[in-house]
Structures are given as C-alpha cells and as structure tokens.
C-alpha cells in the first residue's frame, strides 16, 4: 500500500496521539479504579458517574466542552497558556481528547481486575510488613496486569478511532491535528472519496489488529507469570 505523505502524517499522528492518550490516562485511571474498587467514601457513585460521562455525551459535545475549557478564553486554557502549554488545535489536545474519551473504558477494565484480586493476598503482604503503597506495587499491581493490559488496548483502540471530540477540539489540520479518523471523515465528505477512505480504514484496521495481537500475546505471558494459565 502506497501512502501519500498526508496519509503517513495522519497515521503517525494517530499513533502518537493514541500512545500519549494511554500514557496520560493510565496513572489517573489506576487511582480512580482503585478508589472505586477498594474504598468507600461519600460521592463514590458520583465519581463513577463522572468517569462514565464521556461515554454518555455525544463526542462532539465533549469536544465542545473541551474547547470551552481549554480554548483561548477557557478557564484552564488561559492558565495553561501562561505556562506555555497549548492544547486546543494542537496534537496534545488530540491526545487529551482521546484520553478523556477512553477514560471510562480504561478505568472499568482496571477496576474489574482490582475487584478480582483476593484481598487475602493483600492482607498476607501487609502482615509481612508491606505498607499500603508497597502492597499495591508488589501484589495488587502485578496481579491486575491483565486488566491494565485490557485497559490499555481499549484506551488505545478508542484513541485510534476517536473522532468527534478530537475534530471539535483540535480541528482537522493536515500534518498537525489530522488523525486517521479525521482524514477519513474529510474524505467521506466529497463524492469519490470512498476509495481513499477505505485505504485509511484498512490502515486503522491493521494497526488495531497489530495492537490486539500484541496485547493478546502479552496477556498470555502475563497470565502465565501470575499463574492463571
């Protein structure tokens, strides 16, 4: 498959955005998943609802809200601009949008994994002297690796496919913010663009299959490591 330069750009940008989306959402997702799985606190259900929000709202609305918050005149946008950080109309914003859209998926995968960890093992670690952080790092974390992996795959796949929030927040500037889905969208807007759109669609697919294959392979190794298989 011969890709045109803009197509290459879109592919590389999509990959960059997706990787970053996963990287930035993972630590927070771990924290939130742990809170939801293991702690009781007032407002827990509300936090859970908030996490699900990006799923419920049409992506364009999420993008619009992001634009309002992080745009030139947005509350956060102004502050970040002072620190020299631009998000709107920038690939970093695409990563943020993708991260937010994938967040509920990542959190849920990790949360399910944490809920499946036998608290008795964590207790055993405690009696061996491990404090809460060590218990998490040495026992919980390795045991939830399959869940984290699942979360990463979901988050990555979602980021590869995210379109509505991204195009609304960072527009569709070739070479700068045009991801694969935006490129496909633009192609589908004019008659005769289907063939090119199909090419890019297949490209997405290849990336997705690659990512899933990789994750299945990793999952198998992890499952062996933690004695599940």
């Amino acid at each position, binding site marked *: 498959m011969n890709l045109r330069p803009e197509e290459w750009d879109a592919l590389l940008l999509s990959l960059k955005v997706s990787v970053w989306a996963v990287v930035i959402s993972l630590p927070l997702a771990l924290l939130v998943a742990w809170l939801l799985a293991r702690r009781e606190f007032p407002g827990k259900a509300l936090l859970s609802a908030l996490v699900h929000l990006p799923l419920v709202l049409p992506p364009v609305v999420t993008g619009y809200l992001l634009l309002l918050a992080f745009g030139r005149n947005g509350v956060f946008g102004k502050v970040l601009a002072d620190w020299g950080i631009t998000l709107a109309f920038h690939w970093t914003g695409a990563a943020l949008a993708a991260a937010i859209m994938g967040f509920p998926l990542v959190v849920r995968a990790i949360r399910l994994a944490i809920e499946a960890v036998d608290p008795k093992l964590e207790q055993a670690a405690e009696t061996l002297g491990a404090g809460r952080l060590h218990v998490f790092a040495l026992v919980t974390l390795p045991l939830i690796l399959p869940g984290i992996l699942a979360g990463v795959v979901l988050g990555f796949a979602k980021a590869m496919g995210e379109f509505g929030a991204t195009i609304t927040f960072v*527009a569709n500037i070739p070479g700068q913010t045009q991801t694969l889905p935006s490129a496909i969208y633009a192609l589908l807007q004019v008659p005769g663009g289907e063939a090119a759109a199909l090419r890019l669609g297949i490209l997405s697919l290849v990336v997705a299959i690659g990512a899933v294959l990789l994750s299945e392979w990793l999952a198998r190794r992890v499952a062996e490591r933690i004695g599940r298989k």
Partner: protein
Amino acid sequence: QPDVTVFAAASLRDALEEAVAGYEGQVVVSYGGSGQIARQVAQGAPADLIILANEAWVDWLEEREALVAQSRNDLVGNRLVLVGPSGSAPLSEPTKEALFERLDGGRLAIGQVDGVPAGIYGRQWLEAVELWSVFTPHLAQAENVRAALLWVAREEAPLGIVYASDAQAEASVDVLYDIPSNLHDEIVYPMAMVAGRENTQAERFALYLYSPAVQDIFLQQGFMALETEQ
C-alpha cells in the same frame, strides 16, 4: 509551518484540494462542519481564512468581531437538485403526487433541516412549494449532505435533496429535477479573513481562489460562479 491555514466546509474539499495543488505556496486546509469551524475560530483556532457553507455562522462570527471587517466575500455558489438512484426517470414537475409516487413508502434524504446548510435550503424549498408539512414525516435527515447522497446512491432512499456539485460527482445518482434557486436563500460559500491573523500570504491565497482558473475548477465540480464584486 504552512504559509496559509484555511478552515473550510467539508463539502468544498475536492475543489479546494485541486486549487491548493495548483498554488505555489504552502496551504493547509482543515475541513469540518460550518458550525464547528465557527466555534473553533471563536476560540482562537489558528485559521487565517475561513470558507463556510452557511451565512448564519459567518454572521455569528462577525457579531463576535472574530473576522477582519469587510473581508467577507462569497467565493462560489451552488444549486440544489433533487436526485434519485441512477436510472430513475427525470421529474418534470415535483408535485406532491409525483413525489409520493417516487417515494413509494420510502424516505426523502436531506441534510438536517435545522442545522446542515443543504438541509436548511431544502426545507426552504419544500416550504416554498407548500410540501413541507406533507413531507416532514417522510424525511431522513443526515448529519451532513454527503450521507444523504449516500442513502440515495445505495437506494436506501428513492429521493434526495443535495447540492448539484455532489450529485455531479456521484455516478450512482441521477439528477431528477433542478430546484429553482429563487425558491430558497441564495446558496453561497462566504470566505473571510480571521481577525488577528491578517497576513499577506492569506490575502494572496484568497485572491488566487477568485482567479478564473480556480473558479473554473469550481464550475467543473458543479458549483456556480458568482458575480465577483471586486
């Protein structure tokens, strides 16, 4: 960094791409919906030039003083046509009965009648010929006019109201009827410079778009030339 960044309505993509290819200067175009582009410009999008498919959003931007005063100008125009799957016989007169016969229980594909420009124009026409209330229950509204065209091409809908430019490029549809342009607002694509981003490169590119060569491209793609007021 490109010389010029243009935010343009997605339906202009083919023609604009051809125009950009013939321009000696680096131009990038970000395609999107008109409302989306307007909001982005209001939030400081890095656009030097905008070309929308809808005058209302340009008005909206002007109210917010987001555009360079007096820079607004209509680039090209377009026409509405009634289409059917290829092979359908032309309609001499789109009467209620004739349309219903064609629909045969199916739906009339159209852009969203309260948002997508092509839908708005289509609605105006239907209202003008007093068929609006009759056909409201039989519409299939699309997110964008391309989807409406797709439905007709795939024979999901026996009829559709789309731009002449779209209909021309799609082999799977035939134009059944040219909608008289006096029965709806004039279909124009206004272009304007974004306030705070004025630069000569953008001005040069804007002028280039008015050049006969580019206007030819638009004509070939089924758009309509406008009398330029330069």
